[in-house]
């Protein structure tokens, strides 16, 4: 479903040029749960941004679900994100002073969905992440783990094909992290959502069925596990 071919990404120009990705080839099948690991600065987030259509490669091609992303406009990429992709960030990135339910509804607002339908889907998503009853809480009234669950609910509310999570447990303690991992695993199994996750912790990566090691903008190791 995802296919990167010889993708490079460089930042800056001349002497200040940084090569974040140096000719990356990557294929990810639908329904997989992929963990990306690697040293700081090895290009993990850069890859995630490109996969998430938030950024474009400097060269190379990206094919997503049969669509060639390479030359797409800003708005076309926004529509792809809206329809096929869900994001979970390290810093949760919820809208402050906005209730959990409204945060979860947000992607549907941009789809122009009717209010009652929107609410119904958002409630279902809240239920799926185990936050039933916290709908009217604002982020500041929720713990870190709960905030990340709201973020996951927001990511899955529009039924995406792929969930992209860049260090989703980076700001959480170990117990909370395992909760989130189990949730992602469940979503991957029950709904068939492809999950691509960046993590620094080996025991979080263990939840995935494929672990990719990055080093200096390359894939250093690609470990496919048997079904767990």
């Amino acid at each position, binding site marked *: 479903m995802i296919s990167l071919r010889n993708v490079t990404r460089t930042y800056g120009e001349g002497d200040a040029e940084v090569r974040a990705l140096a000719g990356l080839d990557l294929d990810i099948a639908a329904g997989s749960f992929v963990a990306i690991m690697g040293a700081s600065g090895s290009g993990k987030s850069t890859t995630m941004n490109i996969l998430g259509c938030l950024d474009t490669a400097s060269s190379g091609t990206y094919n997503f679900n049969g669509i060639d992303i390479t030359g797409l406009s800003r708005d076309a990429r926004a529509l792809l994100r809206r329809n096929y992709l869900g994001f979970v960030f390290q810093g949760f*990135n919820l809208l402050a002073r906005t209730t959990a339910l409204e945060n979860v509804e947000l992607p549907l*607002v941009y789809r122009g969905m009717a209010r009652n339908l929107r609410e119904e889907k958002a409630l279902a998503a809240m239920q799926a992440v185990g936050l039933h009853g916290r709908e009217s809480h604002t982020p500041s009234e929720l713990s870190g783990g709960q905030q990340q669950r709201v973020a996951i609910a927001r990511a899955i509310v529009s039924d995406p094909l792929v969930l992209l999570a860049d260090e989703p447990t980076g700001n959480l303690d170990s117990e909370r992290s395992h909760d989130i991992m189990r949730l992602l695993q469940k979503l991957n199994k029950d709904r068939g959502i492809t999950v691509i996750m960046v993590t620094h912790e080996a025991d979080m990566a263990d939840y995935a069925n494929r672990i990719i090691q990055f080093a200096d903008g390359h894939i250093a190791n690609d470990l496919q596990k048997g079904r767990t």
Partner: protein
Amino acid sequence: MLWESFKLALRSVRRNVLRSILTLLGIVIGVAAVIALVTIGSGANEKISSDISKLGSNMLIVRPGNQGPGAPGGNEARSFTERDVEALRNGVALVRAIAPTASKQAIIVYDATSTDASVTGADQAFFVAQDWSFIQGGSFTESDVRAASNVCVIGTTIVSTLLPNVDPLGQTIRVGAMPCSVVGVLGSKGQSAFGTDQDNIVVMPLRTFQRRIAGNTKISNISVSANSPTAVKSAQDSITAILRETRHIGENDQEDFSVRDMTQIAATMSATTTLMTGLLGAVAAVSLLVGGIGIMNIMLVSVTERTREIGIRLAIGALASQVLTQFLVEAVVLCLLGGFLGVCLGFGLAGLASFFLAIPFAPDPKVVVMAFGFSGLIGLVFGFFPARNAARLDPIEALRHE
């Protein structure tokens, strides 16, 4: 989507109430100024035209003297004679009434009270020419005028100061040294455009006035009322021509009298207030411009403050145009709120002014619509640049903000 943007906009205004109000001050003041000025201006115009129409409709006033250079001044000028009036009566077409008058201030006494009033000698045509109505009794008759009877008609001010508790009809009041019997009470006209009380008046037959009060046969003033507004100009011309002849004014000499069109005076006066309104309106426009720049400033601040929020919205699939709409709507809502406050404040000020200046309160819905339209436009124009900045943000950089 628009509705969602509207709700978001209201929410962000509510979150920063004080900041929003301070930002809006320019617009509030600008709109309030426009509303107050236009309302006060049209109230003043209404007052002027109603004052002038109270003088009589399609009125021309013929006076001795002329403001022109080299002409004899008002007091030394030759007054009119019966002959002049007769010539006008025979020669001027399309007029309803030609009323020769003479007047003088005199002391009016009833019982033990006295007051100072304007005493006018005239014939019945006077009441027609100046549009006077009667609330009691009526005019003196033609035979009263011919016989110079001791009768008079009084204004409401005289009634309230001298005869408050009696039926004025049939009472005898003393005008100067002359007793005369009240046959009618005039309907009130209130203050004139020049600030005098038009109801403080005693009107008696011209000949009675000339003999008993003035002691001469002078006619100081002729009121002429044309049949229609269009007849005013031709009446003015023929009056001038006839009087030049009867008063033997040489072809190249200046007239020693003036024929003034009261509607013209009204037009001049309202033109002046319109000019004032226009000038002050320009000041208000500058204030609106400053207000618009204030809006732009606060929207730029808001976009910077909410960079991360914009990043989140873009990441989860907002189009650039949707972000643009959100911030434009926010600016417009802010400005409309300013417009609303401005309209309220403006009407408040106009209400106060109309109370203290004794002019009618004349709110104009057109101006309100315009004020709102203009406020919204300011929001669109000055909100566009910040909103475009927001829409152009790069999602990754925006998410990394702070």
